[in-house]
């Protein structure tokens, strides 16, 4: 089957938080493992051993990125599977209940809710409410002690949020968990943070860490979960016993190789790239908030923004529908996003903004611009150029302020 590629790449791609292109070095490194080196890594022959070696070697940079050893890395099909394995794997192994922050990605939030877990609130900037976390842990602990409910066995808080970019004080959160629920295991979704933050340092006290390939310049369809020693975790996929029995299924060798190269490149370029991209983000943001009625979502009411990713600018644009704004930006060759998308492709209202207490009227005009390793000044200039006219046009046609019946 021929796959047609009907749409040229957008002129100004600012949706790197959704997916960022694979680095050329990644693609190049993967190709042999799709073509000539197609062996199964578990094979007891030269071809199998070659593949096995590629998989084992790829573990090292991935482990270094997440701050663990190679043997603690379990390759998965992506970030969602890593999150699922962390949350459900702990619950399946030891029972109890899960807690997570209210702004987790659905890959964490939905399994937690599905398993009867509880949601920890965040403040207006998207920072976890540690006092609430402590109270919830204490309450669950007290209920468990009297046999009135399950104790908390897993707490999941992401390193950095995918919509607004807020970075959580993980070290402090881990201390709170250790103090109020010593038996609970912490998990963190580092999918958005891994390319930009020192996850090894930020998540040093966190035994379960999720990673996704295509958010760090690697390919889609590959991810990893770091599992530190001593964590009781039941497998979700049973079968051939790959990944030390923690995740069965033939290794995605090319994907794993690509992930390894991407992780290596992040380790080499992260500090410098984060500074460069962060400067571009700041320039973009400064130009856009100069438009009347445009504000940085995490800095509402003139508050200082929290620590956040250098790559994400989440804005609220008053008097426009983000769907319509995205349409006009797309027309002008600018790729951006509003919130998460559902199965039908429609824009969904954001649980992240709702949890932060962003008023619905502001959330209506939400816009996420996310930068990445390919972003250059031309991209930023283009957005700065087209945004004022797009916003002005939509405001001219806006009906929500004078809502008809």
């Amino acid at each position, binding site marked *: 089957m021929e796959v047609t590629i*009907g749409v040229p790449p957008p002129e100004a791609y600012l949706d790197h938080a959704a997916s960022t292109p694979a680095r050329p070095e990644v693609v190049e490194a993967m190709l042999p493992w799709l073509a000539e080196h197609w062996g199964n890594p578990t094979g007891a022959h030269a071809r199998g051993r070659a593949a096995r070696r590629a998989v084992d070697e790829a573990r090292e940079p991935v482990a270094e990125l997440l701050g663990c050893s190679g043997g603690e890395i379990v390759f998965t099909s992506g970030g969602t599977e890593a999150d699922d394995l962390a949350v459900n794997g702990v619950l399946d192994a030891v029972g109890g209940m899960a807690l997570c922050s209210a702004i987790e990605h659905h890959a964490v939030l939905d399994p937690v809710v599905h398993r009867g877990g509880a949601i920890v609130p965040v403040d207006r900037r998207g920072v976890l409410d540690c006092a609430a976390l402590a109270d919830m842990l204490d309450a669950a602990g007290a209920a468990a002690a009297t046999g009135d409910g399950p104790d908390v066995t897993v707490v999941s808080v992401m390193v950095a949020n995918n919509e607004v970019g807020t970075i959580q004080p993980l070290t402090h959160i881990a201390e709170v968990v250790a103090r109020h629920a010593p038996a609970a295991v912490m998990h963190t979704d580092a999918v958005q943070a891994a390319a930009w933050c020192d996850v090894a340092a930020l998540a040093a006290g966190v035994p379960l860490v999720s990673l996704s390939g295509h958010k760090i310049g690697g390919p889609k369809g590959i991810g990893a979960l770091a599992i530190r020693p001593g964590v009781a975790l039941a497998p979700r996929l049973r079968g051939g016993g790959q990944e030390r029995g923690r995740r069965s299924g033939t290794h995605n060798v090319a994907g794993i190789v690509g992930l390894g190269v991407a992780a290596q490149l992040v380790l080499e370029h992260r500090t410098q790239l984060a500074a460069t991209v962060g400067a571009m983000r700041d320039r973009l943001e400064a130009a856009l908030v100069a438009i009347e009625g445009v504000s940085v979502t995490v800095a509402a009411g003139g508050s200082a923004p929290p620590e956040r990713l250098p790559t994400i600018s989440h804005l609220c644009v008053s008097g426009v*529908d983000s*769907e*319509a704004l995205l*349409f*006009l930006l797309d*027309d002008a060759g600018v790729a951006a996003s509003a919130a998460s998308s*559902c*199965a*039908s*492709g*429609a*824009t*969904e*209202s954001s649980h992240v903004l709702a949890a932060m207490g962003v008023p619905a009227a502001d959330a209506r005009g939400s816009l996420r611009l996310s930068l990445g390793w390919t972003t250059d000044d031309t991209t930023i200039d283009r957005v700065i150029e087209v945004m004022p006219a797009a916003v002005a*046009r*939509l405001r*001219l*046609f*806006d*009906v929500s302020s004078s809502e*008809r*019946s």
Partner: protein
Amino acid sequence: MTTAPTGSPRRVMVAMSGGVDSSVAAALLVAAGHDVVGVTLRLWGGDSDSGCCSVADVDDARRVAQQLDIDHHVFNMSDEFTTHVVGPYVADHAAGRTPNPCIECNRHLKFDRLLHRARALGFDSVATGHHARVVTDADGVRRIARGADAAKDQSYVLYMLDADALAMIELPVGDMTKDRVRVMATDLGLRTADKPDSQDVCFITSTEGRRGFLETRVELHPGRLVDTDGNEVGEVDAVELVTVGQRRGLGMSGTGDHRFAVAVDITTRTVTVGSRDQMLTDTTVCQRVTWSGAAVHGEVLAQASAHGDPLAATVTPVAPVAASTDSPDDGDGDVDSHDDGDVDSHDDGDGDSTIEVRWHQPVRRIAAGQSVVFYRNDMVLGGGVVV
């Protein structure tokens, strides 16, 4: 009268439901050389068998758009749908009325919010797959006219379109029979060619049904059945679900003489039943009346359901808007020519203009909440919601 001009290339937004009609509408516009973008509205977030709301239908719309090599977007208007369609639907039932949610969806979503969005995004027009036509009347007024396929005619559900909307919409399959639409879809290899027509309210599933939908949203109450003399003759388990004109489900099938629900009084939870003759009436009062052009008073053909018979009737204003000095109907059937041209303005779709429809021959009573649509020949003049 003439159909809408075809003229030079336009930027057209096609509302694609995932059905065969809107698929072919898009294909025709592409073939005519227009700059076409497909849009599917996501309206209902809950369970759905079909219609605009299910993921499978969005998939179909997107795949057809891909086949036609046009862009496809999904607009989430579920909040507006809840506000303007589902909420009033539930409230109407709770008040003992029988609403038509498809008409409210057309009024508030497809031909208001979507048109508005299309204008804001720089489109010249919005096309849908409705079987109806947009024509220009002898007096220069744009109107909806019946589709070429009488059995599939959808002019009834488009009666609320005003001049602004009519100036911006196109209905490419309105000149075609449904068979022809399917043949064309087959010839083009569109995946929707054999897809069954959607029949039901999109937010009501076949497993749950109307009752299942309503009983989780409003309290249903048992009610008394009385005859037209006030004698108690039975009971129903949910007075909110009884529709005027209904015969089945009243628990009276064994009584020989057919009994119909003649009236529903929600405050006393009473359903009045009567014979076929007692079911008849010669007047119907409508509110929220809208007209494509100037208000019409006088002789019309009036149609009380999507595929009902158009029947001769006389329309007169009951509660003219303030300051109106309408002269009494002169009975010649002509459109009243209002000097100010702005009487019975209905831009908000919820105007309180009220009219009385006097049927030349008695008709079966029409449930409150249903729409009566007025025609001259095959052209829609306007319509209103039965009180």
